């Protein structure tokens, strides 16, 4: 039951249809809105499975279906669908995780007045994301990319009555826009160089060897496209929007800012991987490594449960970029898939906690939730261990190992490897801190004390995601690298390397142990008590808690520069241009006065006299119109007779 490439468009079209239906459905009909959205996505999921079956039949093949969109100049602008294992796997991931998050949302937003709009936006997002995945054209991908950004903006600002949410939405939109500008430039440059934006086009696509050879490797194009990925995937230095985006509802955070949208950047880089030159790859690897470490560091000092997870996402995305940078995009996708599952799991678990604790997100106010929320605790623990990379049974271990091995095998530099290893320790540490603060000890507020387990619509998705978070890792172990070989049959997978594996196991144990030693053994008793780390190294902790002051830095540099420019432009407008305009208006006024004098005095007299003469003449003519219809008819009759005689006498006959 495969799905051939011609019908691939059905996958994004169904959620789009659901969004359309949702937009015109009556607001109070909640079942209709959520039902259509969930049904559409479920159907898309089934179709994606079909697409995967088709793709697996011939993994090395890039099946395409291209068509002309509109004529432009000499040629047509062409768009198309692309079906290969990468697309199919990503589609399955997006639809599966999305479906679970949709179901979770029906519980999470049960009491929200704008329930219908939420599902409409979610469907729109899913449609755009799936469109991005199936695109066989950088242009189509870019269109969907921007649609994804729009949906993200709408969803982050879903609670727009909160000023923080509105500001975060704007920030996310504008920050990613900076990266998108780079992507657009890269796209235009690529089109200029190759005359095509199709990825695969029977030998003429930009990713195919002949065109790549003709292009001869352009670092600039690769880096410009990478700019887009930096913005979307929250890489250093454009990562600042991602933590703020946590102002949106938690399912949104799970769907967009953990599992799918932020992965779009990684997906893009994996898609255009053949375009990237070694120089570009080096930049990507270093950026990724820095992001990974920085995200982990900041996460250590955060107190908001969702922000910790957000910075953890930044860090993990850094890992993925690192993998791409070191040339192993298959492992990046492997980590992307596993990460999508366990991060969605973690976010939904956090959502479950937040929902149960009456929207209390501060980990210092929580605590002791292990007892009342058993399912949430168990699944959250699985997610946490997957993220930390607890060996052998959790998926995160295998995908992270794969990345570290790839970094080890990189012949340019070992720096990314070391940065990555440092981040491993920190990851295990901050996740342990999170677990200990939230689930262990005693409840430190009324909200946490009254927390109850959530209904099945919220816990069942957690369970399903937990299963995936465990099981997905076995698709890409060094001993059976099915996933890597499916994605790229030529991929070389480091087997062996037990030494490195041992090192990373030790590092994980170190992180877990130190975290438990500091936070778990002697749990916090009062919510106002200072953090143990803050006591030991106050200045460092404060610096990290302030997110390494990136926002302040940007405000002080770019913000101020912008402000100065604006002031200058204002002054220019106010004094220089305005003065000139005022001068000319005065001139015009003067001319008008002169004109009027001439007109009234000299010209009017002449015209008046002429008009009077005309009127008198006309009056004498108008007497001829007597209003006597008989008279007119009589005239016509006599006129006819006279005309006949005139013709006769004129000798016409």
């Amino acid at each position: 039951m495969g799905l051939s490439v011609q019908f691939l468009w059905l996958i994004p079209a169904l959620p789009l249809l659901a969004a359309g239906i949702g937009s015109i459905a009556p607001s109070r009909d909640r079942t209709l809105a959520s039902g259509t959205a969930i049904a559409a996505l479920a159907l898309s999921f089934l179709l994606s499975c079909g697409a995967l079956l088709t793709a697996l039949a011939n993994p090395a093949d890039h099946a395409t279906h291209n068509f002309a969109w509109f004529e432009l100049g000499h040629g047509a602008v062409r768009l198309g669908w692309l079906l290969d294992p990468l697309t199919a796997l990503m589609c399955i991931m997006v639809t599966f995780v999305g479906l679970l998050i949709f179901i979770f949302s029906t519980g999470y937003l049960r009491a929200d007045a704008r329930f219908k709009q939420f599902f409409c936006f979610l469907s729109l997002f899913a449609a755009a994301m799936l469109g991005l995945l199936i695109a066989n054209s950088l242009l189509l991908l870019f269109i969907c990319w921007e649609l994804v950004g729009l949906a993200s903006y709408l969803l982050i600002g879903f609670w727009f009555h909160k000023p923080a949410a509105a500001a975060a939405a704007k920030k996310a939109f504008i920050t990613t826009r900076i990266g998108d500008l780079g992507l657009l430039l890269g796209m235009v440059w690529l089109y200029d160089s190759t005359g095509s934006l199709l990825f695969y086009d029977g030998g003429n696509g930009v990713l195919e060897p002949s065109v790549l050879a003709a292009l001869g490797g352009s670092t600039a194009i690769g880096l410009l496209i990478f700019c887009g990925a930096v913005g979307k995937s929250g890489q250093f230095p454009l990562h600042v929007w991602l933590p703020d985006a946590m102002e949106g509802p938690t399912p949104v955070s799970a769907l967009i800012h953990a599992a799918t949208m932020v992965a779009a950047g990684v997906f893009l880089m994996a898609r255009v991987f053949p375009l990237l030159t070694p120089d570009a790859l080096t930049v990507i690897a270093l950026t990724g490594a820095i992001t990974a470490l920085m995200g982990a560091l900041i996460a250590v000092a955060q107190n908001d449960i969702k922000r910790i997870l957000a910075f953890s996402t930044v860090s993990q995305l850094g890992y993925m970029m690192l993998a791409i940078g070191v040339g192993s995009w298959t492992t990046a996708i492997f980590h992307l898939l596993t990460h999508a599952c366990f991060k969605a799991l973690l976010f939904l678990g956090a959502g479950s906690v937040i929902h149960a604790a009456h929207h209390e997100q501060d980990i210092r106010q929580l605590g002791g939730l292990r007892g009342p929320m058993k399912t949430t605790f168990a699944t959250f623990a699985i997610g946490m261990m997957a993220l930390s990379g607890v060996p052998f049974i959790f998926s995160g271990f295998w995908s992270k190992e794969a990345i570290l091995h790839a970094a080890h095998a990189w012949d340019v530099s070992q720096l990314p490897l070391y940065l990555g290893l440092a981040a491993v320790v920190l990851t295990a540490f901050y996740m342990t801190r999170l677990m200990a603060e939230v689930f262990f000890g005693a409840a430190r507020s009324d909200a946490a004390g009254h927390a109850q387990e959530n209904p099945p619509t919220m816990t069942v998705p957690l369970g399903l995601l937990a299963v995936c978070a465990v099981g997905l890792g076995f698709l890409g172990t060094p001993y059976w690298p099915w996933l890597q070989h499916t994605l790229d049959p030529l991929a070389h997978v480091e087997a062996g390397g037990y030494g490195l594996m041992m090192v990373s196991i030790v590092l994980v144990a170190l992180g877990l142990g130190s975290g438990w030693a500091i936070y778990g053994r002697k749990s916090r008793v009062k919510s106002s008590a200072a953090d143990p780390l803050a006591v030991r190294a106050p200045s460092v902790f404060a610096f990290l808690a302030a997110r390494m002051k990136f926002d302040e830095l940007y405000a002080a540099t770019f913000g101020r520069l912008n402000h100065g420019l604006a002031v200058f432009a204002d002054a220019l407008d106010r004094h220089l241009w305005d003065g000139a305009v005022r001068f000319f208006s005065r001139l015009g006024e003067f001319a008008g006065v002169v004109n009027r004098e001439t007109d009234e005095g000299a010209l009017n007299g002449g015209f008046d006299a002429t008009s009077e003469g005309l009127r008198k003449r006309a009056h004498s003519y108008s007497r001829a119109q007597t209003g006597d219809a008989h008279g007119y008819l009589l005239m016509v009759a006599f006129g006819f007779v006279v005309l006949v005689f005139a013709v006769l006498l004129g000798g016409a006959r």
Partner: protein
Amino acid sequence: MNLAPLQLCLLFSSALFCIGLIGALSRSNTILVLLGIELMLNAANLNFIAFWRYGANSEPATGVMFVIFAIAVAAAEAAVGLALVITIYRHQKNIRLQDATRLKG
């Protein structure tokens, strides 16, 4: 006097036309004037048929088509004309045509 049928027809239509003309000129009642004009129109139609019947035919049904369209136009003319008559009546309480000179120059 030996007249061709066509000439008879044309004489018939000429006479009808003149009766309409005299009626339209001599009567002061607007409705009758309109009816006189209708008669003149009918006389013209008569000519079309006469020439279609006896003239050199280039196309089989041209004269007939003309008359059909003329009848349709006459229907429209009658409807609008009589509506105007009613409006005139409403304004001047009679329908004497020679009194309807309010718009003269």
